[in-house]
């Protein structure tokens, strides 16, 4: 989630000062996540330095400064809005490193860890299902869609655990699994 483009997007609608920005951004996210005001200010400074936003008028009440988006900012936002996300996939590398180390340091605990992890994901599916029901009851269809995404990721995690349970033990004979 990019605060940079979130801010550019909101400033395209109208000039805002830092605190308004935080609160608008939180409203955009359905007041589900809190945004750090310090991060908002530092991002505003960087955007101004890069010429993507500029001060809109003089400092107002209690020295507050509102910002507006520049033409360069509009162009950068437009490019970002229509580009697909190509960030690397977030893998559960902590778990994988644990498994690799467990295999080297102990015998036979790998299955136990994978099975425990699988239960965590099953429980997460239950919790997400509850949240999805609540969000639907509250008419929060944006949130329902986001939760559906989380459900699908969790289902994929469970499938990954199944693959690990089946195939991880056979890694024992691989060169990488032999303690040196």
């Amino acid at each position, binding site marked *: *989630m*990019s*605060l*940079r483009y979130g801010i550019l997007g909101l400033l395209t609608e109208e000039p805002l000062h830092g605190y308004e920005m935080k609160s608008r951004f939180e409203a955009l*996210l359905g007041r*589900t*996540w*809190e*945004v*750090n005001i310090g*991060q908002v200010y*530092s*991002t505003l400074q*960087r*955007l101004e330095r*890069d010429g993507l936003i500029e001060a809109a008028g003089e400092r107002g009440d209690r020295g507050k400064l509102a910002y507006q988006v520049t033409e360069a900012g509009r162009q950068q936002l437009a490019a970002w809005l229509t580009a697909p996300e190509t960030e690397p996939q977030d893998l559960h590398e902590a778990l994988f490193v644990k498994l690799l180390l467990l295999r080297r340091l102990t015998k036979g605990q790998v299955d136990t860890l994978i*099975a425990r992890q*699988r*239960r965590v994901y*099953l*429980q*997460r*599916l*239950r*919790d*997400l*299902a*509850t*949240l999805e029901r609540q*969000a639907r009851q509250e008419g929060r269809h944006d*949130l329902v869609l*986001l*939760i559906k995404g*989380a*459900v699908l990721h969790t*289902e994929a995690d*469970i499938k990954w655990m*199944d693959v690990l*349970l*089946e195939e991880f033990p056979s890694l024992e004979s691989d060169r990488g699994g032999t303690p040196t």
Partner: protein
Amino acid sequence: MNTRIELTNVSKIYNGGSKQVGLSDVSLSIPSGQFAAIMGPSGSGKSTLLNLIAGLDRPTSGTVTVDGVSLGGLSEAALARYRRQRLGVVFQFFHLLNQLSVLDNILLPAQLAGMKTATARARARDLLDQLGIAEKAGEYPARLSGGERQRVAIARALVNRPAVLLADEPTGALDSRTGEQVLDLLVEVNRGGQTIVMVTHDAKLAAAYAARVVSLRDGRILDDAQMQPSSGRSVSDLMQLEIKEAGK
């Protein structure tokens, strides 16, 4: 809590062209009143397990006991009686009789089990009420939606107050919203004390609705997880929003 279903060292090997393992040394105990889900991919042994509990199949070794009765000792006739009187089954594709009205579909197993007509009708009306389809009693299945048909099938499965309700992919033929409504009903039925064993390949449905999720793989129990009530954690606890600083 009494044990409703007990499998002890159950194996099932199918003798086709080559021997195929349906279940391999499975022991499982399901207490009275539990809503258990049996989960696994196709070929994992889910259907074999269900067929053994339903007495439609006999284990190669081991014992299956339901409601205190060891199924291995029963004749075919006694098994049929066990299925009629002690078991309710809900299928993926409903299996309703299209030439009978909703009410008559529900009454049929009660009549086969020898329940008095007045008692059976009262029981069927109660179930129709409970499942929210009271006004459909006179309709024929062909005129009902998938969700309504599955409700009728649930009512039919419950009419004889079975010891165990087996549900085989009960939402498999329904869209996801209707499926959730059907499962909400099963949860309601379970709250009334009904033991339910649901077979599904769907991890979300299993985890969201059952109190226990038994995962099968290649005929063995891979995991047997007791689910906790929803933790009450919020969206932001479960889903991390990573806010990145702007460029350097």
